[in-house]
């Protein structure tokens, strides 16, 4: 195979994998956001920031944001929010599983396209958390909390837009013409 006609992008056109430090920072920031003293009246509207960050990295840094990380973050959220241990963990692991399975397709979409794919995921995650609570100990749920799935998507879109630029993501293939090398 000749060297002068590369099939895959070469050199600077290849996007480096996002740094682990950036992934960790956004996840910690997301977790801290959910710990903020939100007013009680809008509590049901507050999105799950941890999941918002996690679902971005499942697509763009699958070597870091694996199922194990989703599980650990879920346990942390469970402990912080006083829900059953494992309730958010299970929901996060399932959501991350779907995102990781779809990521080869998702990573080629612009922000809007990815958001449309993720919308049912965000809603299903909130629904699953409520359902698990109902199964295990609670007899009544506040269905308004489902709205937080929608607001999570609204937070995800601008965050993904910013992070795309930060890690240099692009779905345009820059294949350098072979003549330039000569």
């Amino acid at each position, binding site marked *: 195979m000749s060297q002068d006609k590369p099939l895959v992008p070469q050199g600077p056109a290849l996007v480096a994998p996002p740094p682990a430090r950036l992934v960790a920072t956004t996840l910690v920031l997301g977790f801290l956001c959910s710990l903020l003293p939100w007013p*009680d009246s809008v509590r049901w509207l507050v999105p799950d920031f941890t999941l918002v960050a996690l679902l971005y990295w499942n697509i763009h840094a699958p070597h870091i944001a694996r199922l194990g990380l989703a599980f650990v973050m879920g346990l942390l959220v469970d402990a912080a929010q006083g829900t059953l241990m494992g309730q958010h963990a299970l929901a996060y692991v399932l959501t991350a599983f779907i995102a990781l399975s779809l990521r080869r397709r998702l990573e080629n979409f612009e922000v809007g396209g990815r958001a449309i794919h993720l919308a049912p995921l965000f809603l299903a995650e909130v629904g699953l958390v409520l359902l698990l609570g109902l199964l295990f100990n609670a007899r009544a749920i506040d269905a308004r909390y489902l709205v937080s799935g929608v607001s999570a998507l609204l937070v995800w879109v601008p965050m993904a837009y910013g992070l795309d630029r930060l890690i240099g993501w692009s779905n345009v293939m820059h294949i350098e013409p072979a003549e330039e090398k000569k």
Partner: protein
Amino acid sequence: MASPTHAPMFSRELGLPGRLAIYGLISLALMLADSRYDALATLRAGVATVLQPVQRGLVWPFGFLGEAGRFFVTHGEVLRENRRLETDRQQLMTRLQGYRNLQAENERLRTLLGLVPPAGTQPMAAEVLRALPDPFARKLLIDRGASHGIEAGRPVVDVDGLLGQVTRVYPASSEVTLLTSREQAAPVQNLRNGLRLIVFGTGADDRLEVRFLDMHADLKAGDMLVTSGLDGVYPAGIPVARVIQIEPPRQTPFARAVCVAAAAIGHYRHLLVLRRTEAAGS
């Protein structure tokens, strides 16, 4: 030969569905252990202890920002506000007298409350750190925990009446489940005639209800319900609710009484946990 920096060509780890199954099973086992056997109390307490300073730190800048925001107002706004404040001042001075009276009265009430706790208990003031985002029950996180001598199950009151009980204790904080949660109940007595009833939470802000009320029971709107002390959890004589309406039976043979909680649920940042006294504890 592959250079040592190459990644192995075939990954040897479990596939994605396999890992999902493992983590899913662990999660389900954890939930089962947590809900049925309360086995994860130490793990939860550990995480809560680590997170508490973080949460305190997160609350702090909001108080600070509120004050710093006032610094950035324009000069015109300051002048206008100054003029308005000048006219308001006279009015406020007269109101201040009334306020001071109220404050003194409040102080007296507080000391009174401190002097006459229900028998066998000793009140401990606690501050509400935040309301927990639990869609299933109404819970508060308070800043007193096991290290202050608080145990799960202790009643929590405010100046006006019963608020709920401590349901989970961490080393330096604890969770209070409010009486208005749908599953909470308290045995009460009608103050007027001694009729014994059970009051349930409804999940609404300050509404309680007496379900399965005998349709001929002597209970009227305006009756005061106080704890009867029969359950061994809540000491007798704490005001719980005031009846506002009796709903006659519809499809069931029972009537239902709608009550409003005596305690100012969701109003104050401070509450009292009734600890066991040393004498009663030993």
